């Protein structure tokens, strides 16, 4: 008889805030510079230097908190987390301990059973450490180098409640969280560059059991997919252990992307004692009601609300709304276009079809192309008034995408205007009919199929500029006259 297990997952996400300068000094936070180029006496922890808070980082953290419905500790302070590591220049990290900036929040995710709120225990602000570069592997390298470019970059740590029940939910939570933070514009959320990092706590318990199972921490997952895979692996591993009568031990495991396994990093040690105490070099930070209110007032519309509104206001199918709001830049382009053109579904089709196709080919984001709400709307109007065909419009769109030229200018320049002049078309059609006497006879004998062939000939002759519907109609009329 096999037991059903309930899976309990909680995630800790570290997010680098994309402020221009570091949390406690004026150094640049730019990624990819020469090692130790972005450093100064303060972020190198030189003796005698002092931290000065970057208010923009507090503002960003506050935005993250309010966008995830966190309550705010209005009396805010920083604490020192003391530990030795070569990438930590002061021998302590300035972090927040008992009074995180935000607490008791939630992120809504979509599951198969609908919306589900994942609780947030806390969001706190802290400085990032530097980065060690080992000569060879950690174990056998004879020296290591330190790059402090990352040291002192502002981070928020977002700790979820153990509310996630499947690896898929964990991934959905990360997607939702990332989407919110990108909407806020406070982080690049780039796991490869390390601006988003995620550790997971996972345990299982027999269904119906009150107390939690033994918690295992999983680290070193470098994509959302890896998080999902690692958790799936870990859940199965734990199930097998319990079914074999083994005892799960509290430990930290590392995800190995090549073998697709978690491997033991370290067992349960004595609890680390970080000797937290209030940072005496910084004054406590008062977050006023006014500041919170201003933050709330200035929050952008968040992904879920936008999606719901797109369905409601533009009568879009849920799928369209989902795709369009996935990236707020795409959503913005949609709304700009709709502001100049009254058929939202048509706009949605173009954006989800041609536009995303070209974006993918170029590997760029919606605001990096030359398409604007204005020029897309103009293009759609040219189709509607018969100036160009839908087919030609695609070519025009690509040209707009690449060059940023107005559609009218492209059509003019390349002579793409659709021929809707009946007299002119009739002349062309009659020339073609003269050359295809056999086809004319076939049609006259009742077989309509070759009409399409003749339309094709007309399109070829006009280099695609003929209005195909009109050509079809006129061919039938002219054939009938003969």
């Amino acid at each position, binding site marked *: 008889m096999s037991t059903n297990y309930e899976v309990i997952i909680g995630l800790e996400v570290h997010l680098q805030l994309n402020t221009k300068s570091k949390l406690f000094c004026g150094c640049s936070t730019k990624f990819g510079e020469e090692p130790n180029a972005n450093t100064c006496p303060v972020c190198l922890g*030189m003796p*005698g230097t002092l931290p000065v808070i970057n208010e923009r980082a507090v503002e960003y953290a506050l935005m993250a908190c309010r966008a995830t419905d966190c309550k705010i500790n209005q009396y805010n302070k920083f604490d020192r987390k003391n530990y030795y590591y070569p990438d930590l220049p002061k021998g302590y990290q300035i972090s927040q301990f008992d009074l995180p900036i935000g607490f008791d929040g939630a992120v809504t995710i979509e599951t198969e059973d609908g919306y589900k709120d994942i609780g947030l225990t806390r969001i706190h602000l802290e400085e990032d450490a530097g980065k060690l570069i080992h000569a060879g592997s950690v174990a056998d390298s004879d020296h290591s180098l330190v790059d402090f470019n990352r040291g002192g970059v502002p981070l928020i740590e977002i700790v979820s409640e153990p509310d996630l029940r499947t690896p898929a939910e964990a991934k959905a939570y990360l997607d939702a969280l990332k989407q919110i933070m990108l909407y806020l514009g406070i982080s690049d959320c780039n796991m490869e560059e390390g601006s988003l990092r995620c550790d997971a706590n996972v345990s299982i318990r027999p269904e119906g059991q009150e107390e939690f199972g033994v918690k295992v921490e999983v680290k070193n997952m470098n994509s959302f997919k890896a998080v999902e895979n690692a958790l799936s692996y870990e859940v199965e591993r734990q199930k097998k252990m319990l079914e074999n009568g083994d005892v799960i031990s509290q430990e930290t495991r590392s995800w190995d992307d090549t073998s697709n396994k978690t491997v033991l990093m370290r067992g349960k040690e004595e609890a680390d004692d970080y000797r937290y105490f209030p940072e*005496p070099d910084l004054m406590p930070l008062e977050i006023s009601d006014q500041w919170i209110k201003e933050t709330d007032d200035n929050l952008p519309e968040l992904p879920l609300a936008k999606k719901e509104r797109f369905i409601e206001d533009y009568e879009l199918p849920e799928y369209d709304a989902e795709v369009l709001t996935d990236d707020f830049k795409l959503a913005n382009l949609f709304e700009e276009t709709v502001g100049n053109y009254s058929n939202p579904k048509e706009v949605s089709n173009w954006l989800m079809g041609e536009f995303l196709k070209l974006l993918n080919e170029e590997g760029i984001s919606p605001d990096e192309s030359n398409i604007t709400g204005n020029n897309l709307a103009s293009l759609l109007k040219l189709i509607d008034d018969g100036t160009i065909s839908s087919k030609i419009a695609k070519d025009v769109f690509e040209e707009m995408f690449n060059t940023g030229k107005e559609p009218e200018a492209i059509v003019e320049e390349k002579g793409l205007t659709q021929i809707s002049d009946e007299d002119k078309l009739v002349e062309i059609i009659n020339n073609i009919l003269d050359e295809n006497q056999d086809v004319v006879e076939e049609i006259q004998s009742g077989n309509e199929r070759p009409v399409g062939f003749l339309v094709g000939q007309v399109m070829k002759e006009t280099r695609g500029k003929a209005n195909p519907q009109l050509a079809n109609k006129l061919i039938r009329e002219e054939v009938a006259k003969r």
Partner: protein
Amino acid sequence: MEIYEMNLRQLIEAREKGEITPEEITDAFINRIGAVEDDVKGFVSKLEDSSGVEIKDIGELKGIPIAVKDNMATLDFPTSCSSKLLEGYVTPYEGTAVKKLKEAGAVIAGKTNMDEFAMGSSTENSGFMTSRNPWNLDHLPGGSSGGSAAVVAAGEVPAALGSDTGGSIRQPAAFTGLVGLKPTYGSVSRYGLVAFASSLDQIGPLTRNVKDAALMLNILAGRDQMDSTSADVEHPDYLEEIEQDISGFKFGVPEGYLELDIHPDVKARVEEAIEKIKENGGEVVEVELPPADQALAIYYIIAPAEASSNLARFDGVRYGQRLGDADIEEMYRQTRNEGFGSEVKRRIMLGTYALSAGYQDELYKKALKVRTLIRDQYKAVFEEVDFIITPTCPTPAFKKGEERDPLETYLTDIFTVPANITGSPAISLPAGFSEDGLPVGVQLIGSAFSEKRLLQAANSLENILDIDNPVQLK
């Protein structure tokens, strides 16, 4: 009068009148350093001659050499905190206080010896050498700013910067017959001061008299963007209207303080000072303050706790001495074990213990609560009186080579520590001498940012006490 015997204001006056040039001032003091420094041992690094000295044509300190304690960042000299671990280390930047002195035209004469990382009250904890008291070379100048006190008392410079975490400016000033001012916490930027205990440290001047202290504070005080704990307050001209009559001030003598274990000569000088205040129309009343040992007890929890964290950066990774290359653990262990002296290690251990899980509530957190209570009590007393008057130190200068156990030494901070705990400004000025001819200091403590009145009161007390404290080793 020799140039090296002049105080700051005399030098400025003579220079303004054209009686001496800035170059002559610089040269006179450099020569004086050459003449007596071997006996005094106040400098760990210093100007050897005036060849490289650039005298800027700016500021009221133009050409005047000022000595700086070895825990303040300078570009021209190493900043070693008199620790072997940082021997020869030059910071890549300059601290705010030093920068302000230079902007006022001062010539930085060198870095002065101190108890390692400012932990101690004698300079015997220096990793390099022990400084001497110019009043009697068998005695110590006190500490931790002992080198700064010694070089001013010997006329090697007319003024020096010290730092005061629990009395480290005032006690050496008292031991060497000088004026030592610890400004209100936040008056002077700490940027560039290598931290001992961040919530207690404050930079201040050691000078020959109160007016020179006011002159120095005019240069040093002010909000600094680089130090979040520096206060955004208006600093008045501290010299202006400094001449006031003592009758305008009310002094409080803490009940029971003079009955503590104090050297009889110290007690006598402070009692005489109190009498003189009364004779000259000043008001003196008894006030109730928390037991003196209470502030001392929490000081020796809070200061080591902060120090244990502040000194964690000295790990051999980026600067200073690095020893042990077997692995990272070994590097940390050897670098710190051999780089730090025993007093520094003792305090790191005390502080680590006070912050550790299981002890933090009973020690560190409780100390913070008591700190708040003491602050409140001082605040209440300053509703009644303008200043608190106490001895600066229970004894005159220690004799060199005397055995003192650490606890006994800690007790000598009993009168100075409360001003650091409460953040109050405090000043030590000469009150006379012991029977052995060693200087004795009297201390005035004021409420936060009351430096203007504190300096007025100290100046008037200095006037009525009229102590002769000439340059020594002539």
